[in-house]
């Protein structure tokens, strides 16, 4: 029963609210960097409510079920991830062995749902975008998993989020060590790609392939994708904050500290996306498999050495 409450109130509602706020922070900071005013605080919510009220068009010849199920699958997995994270961070932490691995798997599903939706829509631009997304996943998953190994090794080979958190409460945040810092840097780049933001917005490149896999989406299906992306914009930094920075805490000053971590990560992501042009897909894959994988592997080795 308690898990259902967590699923609805923390996993969905709270995450959605904070995700929309994070999206607003992202848009506002972007606007200020670019000499613009930026949207009012409710704008991300208004966007989604508006989309929910619009007609959903399904392209002729598209696979109807896949086309409509893809956004729902993506959103559900994000909610599940958020639920697991909240339970571990604020709740009892009484989950199962290997929840870290489940989280890693679930975090791939949003990207996969975008690929599914793109291919289901039978639009050449969408297929192009979906194939780019696929290449991008192949690129960033290896360094991302390697980076996540570092906290696992640090906390004595634990694959439970609660134990990683407990380790950090006792011994300080994992970013405090050299290997932890390196792993966090790698993870931030991978998160940038997971969120499909510049410089890794290759699958959705508006001026090249007209938002790629999402080109045929409209109405509530698009609204769900938007909500999913906004929630990811909070969930992914939250995940990094938990495994690298000791997570959030609800008591007193620690709450402020925890908020700073998440807002700081969101702001960092925003700054990266505003100071770079989009790279090509081959350049992105080379970047992830070359320098980033090497740094991540080095971080793992350092962590094994205890640094």
């Amino acid at each position, binding site marked *: 029963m308690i898990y259902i409450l967590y699923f609805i109130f923390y996993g969905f509602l709270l995450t959605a609210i904070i995700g929309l706020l994070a999206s607003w922070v992202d848009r506002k900071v972007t606007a200020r960097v670019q000499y613009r005013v930026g949207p009012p605080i409710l704008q991300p919510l208004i966007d989604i409510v508006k989309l929910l009220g619009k007609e959903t068009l399904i392209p002729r010849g598209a696979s109807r079920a896949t086309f409509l199920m893809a956004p729902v699958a993506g959103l559900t997995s994000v909610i599940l991830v958020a639920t697991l994270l909240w339970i571990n961070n604020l709740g009892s932490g009484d989950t199962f062995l290997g929840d870290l691995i489940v989280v890693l798997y679930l975090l791939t599903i949003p990207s996969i749902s975008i690929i599914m939706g793109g291919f289901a829509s039978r639009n050449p631009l969408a297929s192009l975008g979906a194939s780019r997304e696929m290449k991008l996943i192949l690129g960033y998953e290896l360094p991302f998993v390697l980076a996540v190994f570092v906290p696992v090794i640090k906390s004595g080979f634990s694959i439970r989020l609660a134990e990683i958190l407990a380790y950090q409460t006792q011994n300080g945040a994992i970013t405090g060590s050299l290997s932890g810092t390196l792993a966090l840097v790698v993870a931030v780049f991978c998160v940038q790609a997971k969120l499909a933001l510049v410089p890794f917005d290759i699958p959705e490149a508006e001026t090249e392939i007209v938002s790629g896999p999402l080109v045929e989406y409209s109405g509530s299906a698009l609204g769900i994708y938007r909500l999913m992306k906004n929630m990811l914009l909070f969930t992914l930094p939250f995940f990094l904050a938990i495994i690298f920075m000791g997570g959030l805490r609800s008591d007193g000053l620690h709450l402020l500290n925890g908020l700073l971590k998440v807002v700081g990560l969101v702001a960092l992501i925003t700054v990266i996306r505003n100071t770079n042009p989009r790279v090509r897909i081959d*350049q992105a894959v080379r970047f992830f498999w070359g320098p980033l994988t090497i740094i991540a592997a080095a971080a793992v080795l350092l962590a094994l050495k205890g640094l």
Partner: protein
Amino acid sequence: MGRTIVPIGPYHPLQEEPEFFTLTVEGETVVDIDVQLGYNHRGIEKLSESKSFDQTTFLVERICGICSTSHPFACTRAVEDIIPVEVPERAKYIRTIIAEGERIHSHLLWLGLAGHFLGYNTVYMWAWKLREEILDVMEILSGNRNNYAMFKPGGVRRDIKTEDITGVIEKIDSIVPTLEMLKKAVIDDPVLHARTKGIGILSKEEAINFSALGPTARASGVARDVRKDSPYGAYDKIGWKMIVTQNGDVFDKAVVRILETFESIKIIKYCLLNLPAGEIDLKLKNIPAGEGIGHIEAPRGETFHYIRSDGTNRPVRHKVRAPTFMNLPTYKATVVGETISDATIILAAIDPCYCCTERMAVRTTKGKKLYNGEELVKLSQAKTEKLRKKMGY
């Protein structure tokens, strides 16, 4: 590998104007392209034949919002070539100032758009913010931000007030530091290098074969600039450098445009400080029968106007050729073999302006029926009737 068709257009976020490029791709590599123009045809040349010589400058000013000086400039030079006359010195200087102001704002506009096409929206917004300052300067000088209405056969319509000059020069000086910063941000960015260097190379031979013009040619090492080759206005009295680079890739085209902006600032400042006194208008009365050409260096390359007069007050034939007409075919030479990601920025690198270019369109039907306006209206009415019946009205 299977071939797919990727459309750019007729409506595409890359371009503000309706044009249709069909890219045939294998995987991500472009193997062939097909260009279809003609969505923007407005019959300007025909319209021009119904206007008096004074009115044609206003008409051609509206061919394109960005080249709103180039076309009247070339047009008035064509009319003056019929007589032929030389305009007063002061008018020449004022024309040069306006033309260079247009070059600055056009190049900044391009820089912003190029940033946008690469997903670098910060450069986009910064370049356009800077462009606003130049538009303010133009407003002080001419009273308008974009369509200046300064040109007339035989001179210029408005004088530049002496008391304005100091303020304008201060304003121009104030944008130089920001422009320097923007130049550094673009020319020294390693990620931008990765995206633009060695991409869409137009070799010198191809540039000559395609008769490429303007920055597109100059980036490929072809030193071709009407301002130097056949000086007009005050360009022969001013010391300025023609920017030529050798590689012909997207990066070099950007470098040419950015550095040209600095040259233009130099030219404007020189002209304002050395503005000769005197008349600004010849007050031409009659244009004799005959024909004349006028060509000037627009921001995108050479703009060419041909006008034939039969002694009345309106042209009997007016031909316009915009630089994009010559530059667009180079797209085929530069894009084949590149990836789709680069196809858009390669197209943008020639700074295409279709509304300038569209003079006439020839359709090949390939066996399909071609509808004219009336038939399309009939089809639309039939469809409406069908829908009305279906919905029970």
